[in-house]
């Protein structure tokens, strides 16, 4: 289990486990494709209050290396934009996906 995990693919009923279980873990089941607007942090404005981290329901906000400032994990961010709504200093703006 881990980042090298491969996605399992079933073809017939005989390949299935007896019950519904996740086909691999979140390492392989990424959800970035659900996003149509991408939140982007403006580090000039960001005051490191961590409110976006606190509100993110995924959670797809983490503290990046090496400066330990907040960052968005774009593999899992689904684009709900709660972070944009909650940021007290309007430091998060959006861009359309695929642009």
């Amino acid at each position: 289990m881990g980042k090298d995990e491969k996605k399992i693919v079933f073809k017939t009923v005989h390949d299935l486990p007896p019950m519904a279980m996740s086909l691999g873990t979140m390492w392989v089941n990424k959800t970035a494709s659900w996003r149509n607007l991408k939140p982007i942090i403006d580090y000039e404005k960001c005051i490191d209050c961590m409110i976006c981290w606190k509100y993110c329901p995924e959670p797809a906000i983490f503290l990046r290396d090496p400066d330990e400032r907040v960052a968005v994990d774009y593999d899992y961010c689904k684009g709900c934009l709660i972070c944009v709504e909650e940021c007290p200093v309007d430091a998060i703006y959006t861009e359309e996906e695929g642009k």
Partner: protein
Amino acid sequence: MKRMAIVGNHALSYGALLSRVQVIAAYPITPQTQVVELLSEMCADGTLKAEFVKVESEHSAMAAVMGASASGARAFTATSSQGLALMHEVLHWVTGARLPVVMGNINRAFGPPWSIWTEQTDSLSQRDTGWMQIYAQDNQEVLDSVILAYKVSEQLLLPTMVVLDAFFLSHTSEPVEIPDQEKVDEFLPPYENKYILNPDAPHAFGGLTNPEWYMELRYKIHKAHEEALDLIEKEGREFEKMFGRYYGLVDPYKVDDAETVLVAVSTAASTARHAVDLLREKGKKVGLLRIRVFRPFPYAKIKEILSNARKVIVLDRNLSPGAGGIIASEVRGALANLRNHPPVLSYIMGLGGRDITTKHIMELFEEAEKMEEGKDIIWKGVKL
């Protein structure tokens, strides 16, 4: 091996003890209370090394044993009637999650009006939950069936309900052979399941499954039930080798030359067997087919045994209002695809714990002798 006089409720407790269950969660309800009373004593004094989880409802009890089973523990609970109805949602969940939970259900009629007496409608109402259902006719069979249930359930990842009549078994003391623990251990290995909740191999279970795969998972549950038909009999024979008692899907008695075959479950079948002996003494060609396993439904066995009969009489201590006897409708279903099948007379009797006596069964047999055609429903004993 020790021979002891115990009530049916305690036969369930001893079955759980000998099966070395690891988690018990239950909520008391008449007439089940003694089952968990004794198990909680066994847990308290160290006879049984199990976690006893106190819960605030039957829904929680079933949820707790489901969680326990999902984490790899052998889990047990018991209930009755309204309690079983409250478990209904989780019963489906346990089957879908393919967890081999075993539970006892003491048949008790539904309220209102309140009743504490026996009737099979409570467990038969759970017919489509995917649980295997075993109906015992004596306390020895209750105890043995718990051990057998774990043996079969854990191989197929299907849950089993061991069902017994309120009072006629639950509160009746009679001799029961308590098998030796070492022999039970030899028969029933520890529970192993590779699909368990395990932090070292994380998976999500039972999540949203789209129409592309849901049907396949249902198919697998049904296939497991089909496998159970053979496995129940195979393990029954293994059990017989070790303990000297055989339990199969059905229990036919004097059916080989029988012109009329009575079909019954539970203690009514035991009484019917006595009636068959008395009727045979009078020269009547009558036999008995006791259905022991109701799910999976033993279609092939039932067809094989009943196809030679000239008349079939089904005794139902249950009622599906608007349809009739539940066992009778299943038996009619089993016979429907035979080219020439015997007429089926469906008797409803003994609801709400009303007694079903040897005399009643002999009377209805004599009444049925005069009937040439099948009847969808005949009420026995209603004050009209």
